[in-house]
């Protein structure tokens, strides 16, 4: 009996140990991206790193749903504090692809992640709708807006800035990084300066025609015989190369990569 009991105690102890061991491992295990599969895709805000208050989450969720209704593609925001398996980019790509995000005829979405473990933040886009709207230039502008707030450790504002830009670009496929009204003051300023300068050149050219007294500078009218060449050498010396970086074409294309699911993703990210 004693033996039996001993065995039971031993078993219990080892079981408890195993449980304890298991428990100590669980957070790591649970935090790998595999465990972020089959999440509820209707939540739209996933604050695993606990960077937001419940109120903030609720507000952001409301915003996300409003944008989804308005533009017809999916929008989500996620924060994580443990990620040792993938790059931030691969994480959000898989999170989006395997959890059934994506709306519209090409199951498009735009998502943003703040990865507190790798200290990256990243935007991922999928589907024709989002890939056309969110070109590289626009992604850069969005990352700028998020970066400011992430650096200031204001994660709610970072999410808000992300949604703000989503709202701005919406379904506008012009590729312009700024809205017409944002660009207007600067365009007027440059436009007026250009107008004054161009008109100045025209005015100057016409005014110059009124002046015809000029010092003689050449004598081409008076050549008796034309130029006689007595030597004409063209000797090859060397070859060298110069290169300049291609100008990044704002409003231009969207570069994409393929995620593990096989879908084409756009977007981009930065460290903080």
């Amino acid at each position: 009996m004693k033996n039996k009991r001993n065995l039971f105690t031993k078993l219990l102890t080892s079981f408890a140990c195993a449980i304890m061991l298991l428990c100590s491992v669980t957070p790591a295990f649970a935090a790998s991206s595999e465990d972020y599969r089959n999440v509820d895709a209707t939540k739209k805000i996933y604050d695993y790193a606990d960077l937001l208050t419940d109120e903030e989450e609720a507000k952001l969720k409301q915003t996300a749903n409003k944008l989804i209704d308005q533009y017809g593609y999916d929008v989500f925001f996620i924060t994580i504090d443990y990620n040792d398996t993938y790059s931030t980019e691969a994480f959000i790509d898989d999170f989006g692809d395997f959890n059934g995000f994506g709306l519209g005829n090409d199951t498009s979405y735009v998502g943003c992640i703040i990865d507190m473990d790798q200290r990256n933040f990243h935007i991922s886009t999928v589907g024709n709708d989002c890939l056309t709207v969110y070109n590289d230039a626009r992604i850069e502008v969005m990352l700028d807006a998020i970066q400011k707030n992430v650096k200031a450790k204001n994660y709610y504002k970072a999410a808000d800035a992300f949604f703000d830009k989503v709202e701005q670009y919406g379904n506008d496929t012009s590729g312009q990084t700024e809205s017409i009204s944002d660009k207007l003051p600067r365009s007027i300023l440059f436009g007026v300066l250009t107008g004054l300068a161009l008109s100045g050149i025209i005015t100057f050219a016409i005014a110059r025609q009124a002046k015809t007294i000029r010092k003689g500078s050449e004598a081409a009218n008076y050549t008796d015989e034309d130029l006689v060449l007595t030597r004409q050498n063209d000797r090859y010396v060397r070859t060298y190369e110069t290169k300049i970086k291609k100008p990044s074409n704002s409003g231009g294309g969207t570069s994409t990569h393929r995620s593990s699911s096989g879908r084409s993703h756009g977007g981009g990210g930065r460290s903080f």
Partner: protein
Amino acid sequence: MGLNQVYRCSVCGGELSWDPTAQLMKCPYCDETFTMEQMQEQGKTELNEENYERGQSAEELGYTESTDDTAVDPKDLRVYKCRHCAAEIITDKNTAATTCVYCGNPVVIEEQLVNGFTPKWVIPFRVKQDDVREKYLSFIKKRFTPDSFMTDTHIQKIKGVYIPFWLYDAKVSGIISYDAEKTTRRTSSDYIITTHKVYDVDRAGNISYKRIPADASSKTDNKVMDSVEPFDYSDLTKFEMPYLAGYFAEKYDEDAKTCEERIIPRIKQTFKDKVEKTVSGYNTKKITREHINHQITNSDYAMLPVYLLYTKYNEKDYIFAMNGQTGKMIGNIPLDKGKVLKFWLGWSALLSVLSTIVYLFII
């Protein structure tokens, strides 16, 4: 010795002057015309008949102003006696032809054009003085010309003047070396790569010029005279005194050596331009070395026809000139600041709107 000469009509005794339309000497009274050959024949006899009278210094005689607007320093004034009315003609020491202010007759002061001052060539006037005003009026009609300037009321005088010129023949030879590059462009994914093939290019050659003009009077603005070029040398004829009758003329007061300094840069520049044109097929070229020699092979003294128009507008003098042979008019027309501003702002408004649209929607 010299004399001031009046060329008389052998028919009626009237004073002949050069007629640009007929290209002959013409009597204003009986319309009889004479060729230069006839004039030479007549001149020989007249020369013997006339009494010589050297130009006397006006300063010594107490004169301070000229009678023909050749306003200069009193010590440069000379006095002549008009052969027609015996009035005194007071003019600049370099004047070779003028008009008697009293009887209006043309006077040629031959003593100015002898002893090394005889021009070799002349291009006679082809444009009539009566046509100058009209040509001038159409010339000044430019977009920014002040409305009040578009009349002929501000013309103070129009003078047909034979300007003394040196006509140079010259040779230029030299060698010019260039650093020239042929470039090709290709693009990689991130870069635009330019391949430069560098060549050492040498060109040696020579060129010759004939009759490059440079005005030889210190009184005329060199830039104005450069601007009335070119003259058509097919009209260039042997100089004869009677051509000057009816016009103003001056003898040169800058010698050939002095004036050649002005043509040297011009002939060198044309040599460089022409040589550079032979360096073709390159995207860039830069002169690395040049050695250019010039040689003035000949210089001839010639009288070339120019109309000078003196105008005054808002207390400022404006000079216009017309090539008396080809009719080419030059001059700096005053600008109406209000018109310029209006034009500038008007176009600015239009172009600003267009540029704003481009910035807003395209760039």
